[in-house]
């Protein structure tokens, strides 16, 4: 079989495109480049998605030219697929949303840079590479969050996101330095071997390092108590960027957390799963309860994103005890990324036309913007986990894994939380389909938005009716990863 070095190809393609686009401002002129860069970004991301699909289907042997830094395995391919898919949806949605911005080519360039960071993070197995990719992922998103630079809300979101994001990298770096000090290496496989004969009086230091790593990752993964910045950042940022932050950046954070924690946790010789389980249940409960009381749509979706992070954390809790845990985490990552991106893009479509975000302005949306309302309904019902949609299957796997790994109360908590979440998701659907619209004018839905929303809803429904292939991909990736450590 042919060999394929996926990280190397993607780094080359994404980085050269990201560097080329701003340069073309000079050659083509700003106005023509605005159009060109949008289509070019879409093409490059579609190419990246194609490469990742080929790798994921098992048609080629996965091979890496720098196996100590970037490991080309199915886990990386899976998460690369998730983040590139979201980036592609966001790019197409941005065609219309960003149309009037004068610096639109820079926007697409940063979109490519952050996708590059996320892809590299998916494959990285060296602490140095993880840190560099982490920064490459974070720095463009700080700028994207504040991209509407004359808009005070966007700027405020960027300031809050920046302070917390920079703190997250600082804390993460400190945790890494302790791991390096204990093991004398930054490669995760070497760290694993070096730490197995750690002297017992160093265990407290290792525990301190692990806490720093949890805090550093936790700030990005939006787990309680590090979640305060999320609603502000998502509400103020351009809504397409919020889609990217909640659907893609968080998932890339999860893959780094999986790779690091899979190495660190078994070596600590004290059990961290109970404390993680408590964090998981606190995250989902707090997210869901706060979402119930929100008046703004983007804020509600931000809290729902925090709650969904709690569900994902279940996979990390049962990682050592149940083989289903990791595949559930992967499977729910893909589904949640799709659902959350679709919901945010639908909200972006509505906000772009009306510049309203309050929940009450969604009354009777089904008559005013039928396609947007339909895909918003599909994605919200998917987030609750209504049976024919894909969110149901992945939640099923996650909760089964929790019961299987000895955390039956966590599965029960997850079920109760899903029931609570129906409260605020259901009320939106009811408002869109049952209530009378406040203004009886129909709004013309623009083509890029309807296209991306319909395609995303199609994928959600199809992967819900035929969950087999995606779940098989997720479980192959998790089995390969677990057999490697």
């Amino acid at each position, binding site marked *: 079989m042919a060999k394929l070095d996926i990280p190397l190809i993607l780094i080359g393609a994404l980085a050269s495109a990201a560097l080329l686009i701003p340069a073309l401002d000079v050659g083509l002129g700003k106005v023509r480049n605005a159009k060109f860069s949008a289509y070019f970004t879409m093409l490059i991301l579609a190419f990246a998605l194609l490469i990742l699909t080929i790798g994921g289907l098992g048609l080629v042997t996965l091979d890496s030219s720098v196996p100590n830094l970037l490991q080309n395995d199915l886990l990386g391919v899976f998460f690369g697929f998730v983040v590139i898919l979201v980036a592609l949806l966001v790019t197409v949605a941005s065609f219309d949303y960003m149309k009037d911005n004068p610096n639109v080519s820079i926007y697409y360039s940063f979109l490519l840079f952050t996708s590059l960071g996320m892809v590299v993070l998916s494959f990285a197995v060296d602490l140095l590479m993880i840190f560099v990719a982490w920064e490459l992922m974070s720095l463009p998103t700080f700028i994207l969050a504040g991209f509407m630079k004359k808009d005070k809300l966007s700027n405020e979101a960027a300031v809050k996101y920046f*302070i917390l994001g920079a703190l997250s990298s*600082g804390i993460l770096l400190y945790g890494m330095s302790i791991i390096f*000090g204990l093991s004398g290496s930054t490669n995760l496989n070497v760290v694993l071997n070096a730490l197995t004969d750690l002297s017992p009086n160093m265990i407290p230091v290792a525990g301190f390092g692990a806490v720093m790593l949890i805090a550093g990752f936790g700030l990005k993964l939006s787990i309680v108590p590090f979640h305060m910045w999320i609603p502000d950042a998502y509400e103020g940022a351009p809504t397409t960027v919020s889609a990217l932050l909640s659907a893609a950046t968080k998932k890339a954070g999860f893959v780094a957390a999986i790779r690091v924690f899979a190495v660190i946790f078994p070596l600590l010789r004290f059990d961290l799963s109970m404390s993680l389980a408590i964090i998981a249940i606190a995250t989902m409960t707090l997210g869901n309860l706060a979402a119930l009381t929100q008046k703004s749509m983007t804020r509600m979706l931000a809290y729902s994103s925090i709650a969904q992070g709690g569900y994902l954390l279940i996979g990390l809790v049962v990682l050592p005890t149940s083989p289903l845990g990791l595949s559930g985490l992967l499977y729910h990552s893909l589904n949640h990324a799709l659902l959350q991106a679709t919901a945010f893009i639908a909200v972006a479509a509505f906000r772009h036309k009306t510049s309203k975000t309050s929940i009450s302005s969604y009354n009777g949306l089904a008559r005013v913007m039928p396609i947007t309302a339909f895909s918003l309904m599909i994605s919200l019902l998917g987030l609750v986990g209504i049976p024919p949609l894909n969110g149901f299957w992945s939640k099923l796997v996650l909760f089964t894994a929790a019961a299987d790994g000895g955390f039956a109360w966590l599965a029960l908590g997850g079920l109760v939380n899903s029931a609570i979440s129906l409260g605020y998701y259901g009320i939106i659907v009811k408002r869109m389909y049952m209530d009378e619209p406040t203004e009886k004018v129909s709004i013309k839905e623009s083509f890029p938005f309807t296209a991306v929303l319909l395609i995303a809803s199609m994928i959600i429904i199809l992967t819900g009716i035929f969950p087999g292939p995606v779940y098989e991909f997720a479980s192959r990736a998790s089995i390969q990863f677990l057999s490697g450590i």
Partner: protein
Amino acid sequence: MEPLSSYFLLSLVLLAIGIYGLIAKRNAIRLLFAVEIIINSATINFVAFSRYLQQPVITGQTFSLFAIALAATEAAVGLAIIVQAFRLNKDIDVLELKRLKG
């Protein structure tokens, strides 16, 4: 005291100062400083560990160079955002930033 523990103590103190600064200060530039102090405390750790381990390795020093470069880019991005905040609000007190409220 042996050198490694004194360096580790120094980095812990710097970390504590950084976290104190983040909690207690309201000026956005000061917060940026606090974050930089945290990054530098980790950098000190890397260099000290790299030098005083049983088998000294160069990896830690390489890592610290990367960390310094990335901290500089982070400061550049952060300053750009904070300058824009000052232009819009005529103030960089982060507690005054409360337009986004649920």
